[in-house]
């Protein structure tokens, strides 16, 4: 028999991450394909981050090595991992504070508040450990491989990765729990979701700006040296201000000698930066490292073990009455009744229902319509970060030449089509209704109207995104009006087809059993399939365009009419298939 706490931890982990230890041997092909797809997605995303971090760390290593300050990348890793874990941990802790009724139910079980908070803490820690492993682990790997470090170094690195998230996470809960306890309006699932999603968007835009700005400068060793080597750098100050990061760095062999003050005034050119200070020790002594590791362990354990019992009572109190809503009473006058209750065409009623249900559910909104706004903003940030190199010199001339030919039209159309596919609301159209299908199917609703309303909603969002995408590209590359119109036509035709395919996919493969809207959206593979599918299709058309060598009008006709023809050709088949599948759906 397991202890109540270990059972609670298992339950929390399972409900947070959907861990399934079931064997895939003998499982249906669909299950195997789904698991393989998820695994592939995880590998791709991890590889993307590892490649990006690896590139930055290796560039930094090469720039710092001549100064003997190469362990600066470990300092950078420790600081960056601590900062990112704090921010991500904060967001995770907020968004998973009380995701379902289960948390409130725990209060009625014979569980101690510290067990409930402890299980929640462990669950949040798991995701932060992965972040720490990616960010700090990569620094350890780059440094260790280049310095031919011993296995003990990697072991210390692994321990550091395990320990680093604990203090930031404890700090995050130290802020969140008292705020939740005091601020009653925050104890609402929708408010929490809006705060967490907005903060996540701002964070990702910030990271995007940083990576875009930094990537063009990572080739310049002097720039890196000025920012990472020396006592007057941001990471050096951060190490001083945040002892756990300093201990992590020292545990991996870093010493103050690796931060020579003179480097802060390093020469600007790479060639001038080459002469290295000779008398820098290779690393701290083993004893110092061990002491630092013990210190990090002590601080981390103390933070977690102090915060959990100290705040568990407040956490339990904040859970009671979580997501309770105030009922507003108002007796409508005759006039109000006349204005409120009006008959509308059925298709419009169904369309308005779609819009309201998506826009009022934060997880649907942030993963759907909001992307129409945020994608151009993200692209704008990319452009802003690289505006100097894009708006002058050979790059600007190349862009002008590219825009004057078919390339500008195709770039605008491709970008618009990609932006238009990001909302992807049609790919979860039927899945979102799920249990409501039980009632909707008992109504005198034509499946065709029901599906058409979903397609129209998806297409309207795509059309808006297409317009924004085309205008944005036109602004960047100075596309003329004919290019704008051609790109818009191509993107709209493409979007019409893609929305139909999305709806068809969700009709064939709906996810109709879910407990929360988050599960309906996040555990539904259709959205990912369509977004990645569109990326591949756009890529293939980019390759095809190179070989076609058509004029702008030629491309507009070929692609615009081609996608339209495909849409109208697919329509009768899709209609029949969707009608049949809606009829067959059982909840």
């Amino acid at each position, binding site marked *: 028999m397991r202890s109540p706490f270990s059972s609670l931890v298992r339950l929390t982990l399972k409900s947070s991450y959907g861990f399934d230890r079931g064997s895939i041997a003998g499982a249906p092909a669909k299950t195997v394909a789904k698991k393989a797809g998820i695994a592939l997605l995880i590998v791709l995303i991890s590889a993307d981050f590892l490649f990006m971090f690896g590139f930055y760390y290796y560039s930094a290593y090469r720039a710092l090595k001549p100064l003997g300050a190469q362990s600066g990348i470990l300092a950078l890793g420790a600081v960056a991992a601590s900062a990112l874990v704090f921010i991500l941990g904060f967001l995770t802790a907020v968004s998973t504070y009380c995701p379902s009724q289960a948390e409130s139910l725990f209060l009625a079980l014979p569980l101690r508040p510290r067990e409930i908070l402890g299980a929640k803490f462990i669950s949040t820690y798991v995701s932060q450990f992965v972040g720490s492993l990616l960010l700090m682990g990569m620094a350890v790997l780059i440094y260790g491989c280049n310095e031919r470090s011993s296995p003990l170094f990697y072991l210390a690195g692994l321990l550091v990765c395990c320990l680093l998230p604990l203090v930031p996470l404890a700090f995050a809960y130290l802020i969140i729990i008292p705020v939740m306890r005091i601020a009653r309006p925050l104890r609402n699932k929708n408010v929490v979701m809006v705060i967490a999603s907005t903060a996540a968007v701002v964070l990702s835009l910030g990271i995007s700006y940083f990576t875009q700005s930094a990537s063009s400068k990572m080739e310049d060793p002097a720039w890196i040296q000025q920012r990472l080597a020396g006592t007057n750098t941001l990471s050096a100050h951060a190490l001083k201000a945040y002892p756990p990061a300093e201990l992590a760095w020292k545990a991996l062999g870093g010493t103050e000698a690796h931060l020579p003050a003179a480097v802060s005034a390093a020469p600007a050119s790479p060639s001038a930066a080459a002469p290295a200070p000779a008398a820098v020790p290779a690393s701290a002594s083993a004893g110092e490292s061990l002491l630092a590791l013990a210190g990090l362990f002590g601080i981390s354990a103390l933070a977690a073990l102090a915060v959990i019992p100290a705040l568990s009572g407040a956490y339990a109190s904040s859970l009671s009455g979580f997501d309770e*809503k105030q009922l507003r*009473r108002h*007796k409508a006058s005759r006039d109000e*009744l006349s204005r409120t*209750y009006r008959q509308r065409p059925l298709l419009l*009623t169904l369309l308005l229902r779609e819009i309201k249900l998506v826009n009022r559910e934060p997880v649907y909104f942030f993963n759907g319509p909001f992307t129409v706004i945020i994608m151009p903003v993200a692209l704008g940030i990319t452009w802003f970060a690289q505006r100097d190199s894009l708006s002058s010199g050979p790059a600007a001339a190349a862009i002008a030449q590219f825009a004057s030919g078919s390339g500008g039209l195709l770039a605008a159309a491709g970008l618009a089509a990609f932006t238009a596919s990001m909302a992807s609301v049609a790919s979860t159209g039927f899945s979102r209704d799920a249990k*409501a299908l*039980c009632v909707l199917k008992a109504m*005198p609703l034509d499946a065709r109207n029901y599906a058409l309303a979903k397609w129209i909603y998806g297409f309207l969002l795509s059309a808006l995104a297409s317009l924004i995408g085309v205008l944005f590209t036109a602004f960047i590359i100075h596309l003329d009006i004919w290019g704008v119109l051609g790109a818009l036509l191509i993107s709209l035709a493409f979007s019409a087809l893609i929305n139909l395919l999305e709806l068809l996919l969700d009709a064939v493969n709906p996810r109709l059993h879910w407990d929360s809207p988050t599960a309906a959206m996040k555990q539904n593979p259709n959205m990912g399939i369509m977004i990645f599918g569109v990326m591949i299709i756009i890529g293939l058309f980019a390759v095809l365009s190179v070989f076609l060598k058509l004029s702008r009008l030629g491309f507009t006709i070929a692609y615009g009419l081609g996608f339209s023809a495909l849409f109208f050709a697919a329509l009768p088949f899709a209609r029949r298939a969707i009608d049949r599948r809606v009829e067959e759906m059982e*909840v």
Partner: protein
Amino acid sequence: MIKLEGLSKTYAKGGKKGKNSPARPAVDDLSLELKPGEIFGFLGPNGAGKTTTIKMLTGVIRPDRGRVEIDGIDLAADPIAAKMRFGYVGDNPELWNKLKGTEFLNFMADVYGVGDAERRGRIERYASRFGIADVLGASISSYSRGMKQKLCVLGSLLHEPPNWILDEPIVGLDPEAAFELKSLMRERADAGATVFFSTHVMEVAEKICDRIGVIAGGRLIFTGSLEELRERRAAEKNAAAAAGADINGGAGGEESGSLERLFLDLVEEERAGEKTAGSEPEARR
């Protein structure tokens, strides 16, 4: 008028269980005819097939065999026309939380093609009757379960349907609202509508049903009035006593005549019969 003919439905075809275990019908050859003006209570233990029957009756799922007729319209042949002829209250009122009460009612009225004047009048009338007129402008997510249930009942009546189908409608209602609903069911029936509802509350069935149907193991094991059920059980007991056998329902007096007792006896007997049938091949060996 509602007519069910030989309805059958089996789940788990080709599913995880279906491959290795024989699929058992959730509903097996169920036939039933409900007349205008009658209230029919559909009773059965958990998992007996009540909800599956209602889902087939309302067109939510397709039967494997059999047909459903609503006022003479074949549900499979002309689903829209057939569905216009009934109002349906599902067993889960938690489906519309992101809408306001007014928006839900407008949606329902638009789907059933109810004109402006009619919808206003009916909403006012029923909302006052259920005591939810002053909360209709609020988000449904802020309603209690009972309020949500009342709203669903209201929505199902907006087109004044000639047939009214309700799945566990009493659950979550306060005594006052439960009384109102029962009165409304009687009024609808008196006005010529057919009322079909499932329930676990024997008292409700006993008090307002003209006829009841008992389903167990997917089979309809009794249809008729409560009086007919009592007579049938008494006759079976007498026959068993004459043969020297003991049949279920040993309790005597007034209790033995209650619907609850009769229901429990019927279901127990059906289960015992199923077990015997299941062990027959083994016994033959």
